[in-house]
């Protein structure tokens, strides 16, 4: 069944400069979807609309059958608990003046989630592979990959149904990147995951379904394996041909 329904959504100030143009998308429970696009594709705007940080100019977004309405406080509180996000830059996404425990506990405090917060934070840290004593330390004491784990812990601590990731591994080193992708894949088993990225290789490794965005429009969508094996739209074909591969080309002149 459908968890999030994006129905004919457009966003933008003038009719001829649409950031998003008539986008429709169904996110079912337990799905992993990769939103792939280059700069100017509108993928980050779509993510902000899905988070309820901005409202579409036309069209509608509904969550669990209820339309997304920032004015509806009771609905928004349950929505915030169900939908969490991880950002690209692990250096900007953690408040440098707070301890890790206070950072991870923020959704629990703000959304007044019942239960033992200390234990829930410890569980979240454990499930992203961080030591229990990480809780007492500050963000600057961690590497980029560890910081991204902290950000993921904050996102999963209220047990959301949907996790949104905005280029969540793009700022990380290659070896760190594979570990975080593995972590997200493991977490994706228990919730829906929408992974926004320009990196089609990471999306291919992580997502069951893929949506290709170009200039605010969805040009192709489907099962990742099928789309990669047989891309239909010329833009998808060009995108795939542009991705550098390790083997392939002969290095002799």
């Amino acid at each position, binding site marked *: 069944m459908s968890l999030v329904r994006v129905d004919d959504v457009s966003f933008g100030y003038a009719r001829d400069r649409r950031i998003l143009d008539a986008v429709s998308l169904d996110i079912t429970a337990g799905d992993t979807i990769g939103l792939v696009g280059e700069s100017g594709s509108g993928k980050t705007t779509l993510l902000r609309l899905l988070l309820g*940080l901005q409202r579409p100019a036309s069209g509608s977004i509904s969550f669990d059958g209820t339309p997304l309405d920032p004015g509806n406080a009771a609905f928004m509180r349950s929505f915030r608990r169900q939908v969490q996000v991880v950002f690209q830059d692990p250096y900007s*996404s953690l*408040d440098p003046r707070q301890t890790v425990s206070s950072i991870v506990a923020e959704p629990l405090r703000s959304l007044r989630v019942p239960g033992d917060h200390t234990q829930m934070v410890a569980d979240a840290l454990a499930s992203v592979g961080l030591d229990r004593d990480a809780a007492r330390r500050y963000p600057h004491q961690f590497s980029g990959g560890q910081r991204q784990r902290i950000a993921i812990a904050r996102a999963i601590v209220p047990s959301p149904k949907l996790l949104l990731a905005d280029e969540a591994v793009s700022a990380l080193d290659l070896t760190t990147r594979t570990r975080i992708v593995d972590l997200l894949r493991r977490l994706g088993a228990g919730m829906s995951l929408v992974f926004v990225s320009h990196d089609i290789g990471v999306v291919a490794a992580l997502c069951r379904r893929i949506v290709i965005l170009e200039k605010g429009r969805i040009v192709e969508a489907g099962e990742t394996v099928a789309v990669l094996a047989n891309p239909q739209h010329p833009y998808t074909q060009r995108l795939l041909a542009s991705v550098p591969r390790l083997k392939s080309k002969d290095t002799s002149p």
Partner: protein
Amino acid sequence: MTAAAETQAVERRQHSLTLYAGAVLVGIHVVIALLTLVWLPYDPSAMAGGRLEPPSWLHWVGTDRLGRDLFTQLMIGSRIALMVGVGAVAIGAVIGVTLGLLAAFASRWLDDALAATLDILIAFPTLLIAMLVVAASDTASLSTAIVALGIALSAIVARLTRILAKRVLLMDYITAARTSGTSWLGIVLIHVLPNIWPTLSVNFALQFGLAVIAEASLSYLGLGAPPPNASWGRLLQEAQGTVYTAPIGAIAPGVALVSLVIGMNLLADGLREAIDPTRQAR
């Protein structure tokens, strides 16, 4: 040890020296100010000796033209200066931080309007604004002077707060706080204030010096605390007529004023070094 590391170590020693020197200078004034609450060498408003006596063991910096002990008056001046500095900065901070945060969070047009107003206010010298406020209240008293200076400083604080807060609001952890359901008030208290506080507090130390100088100027013009409050500015003004016969009467309040302001500025510099993590040892 390489040259670069040596330079770093020397710099760090200089920084702690700055902080230390500032703390000592300000500390002397604080101790004297506290002392005046319980003990004074002489009655500040009574004749304690001959007129315009030179410095002696009985009168460390001599007496004024009414025969009052000058050192006693300087001590009271320390207390007044500190009260003015603390009071004006506190008022400036409360008004300024509130306005600055409002502007940072406000919608586009309100922010633009507030920013333009602040820019205009800052174009006026602090002293001029303070004089206008005193004139409007039509009684010159110490508390009027403090309120006037606080209002004058608030524009500077507000502008700085607005810029600092806007920078913090761009960070992803603010968006993360919003998607975690944290209210705007919560965002201000938990994220914005703690992150702008270090820079603000350094600025407050500098504003303190500004306020002390401005109060001395107000008193010099007769718009500050009226007698018998011995503000350094009024001592300077009273010594003006006898500056050639008894120069110590003008020099002493000047030295007192400069030492407090320099001390506060050194303290601000030292604080800046101490709380800026990028300048600390790696």
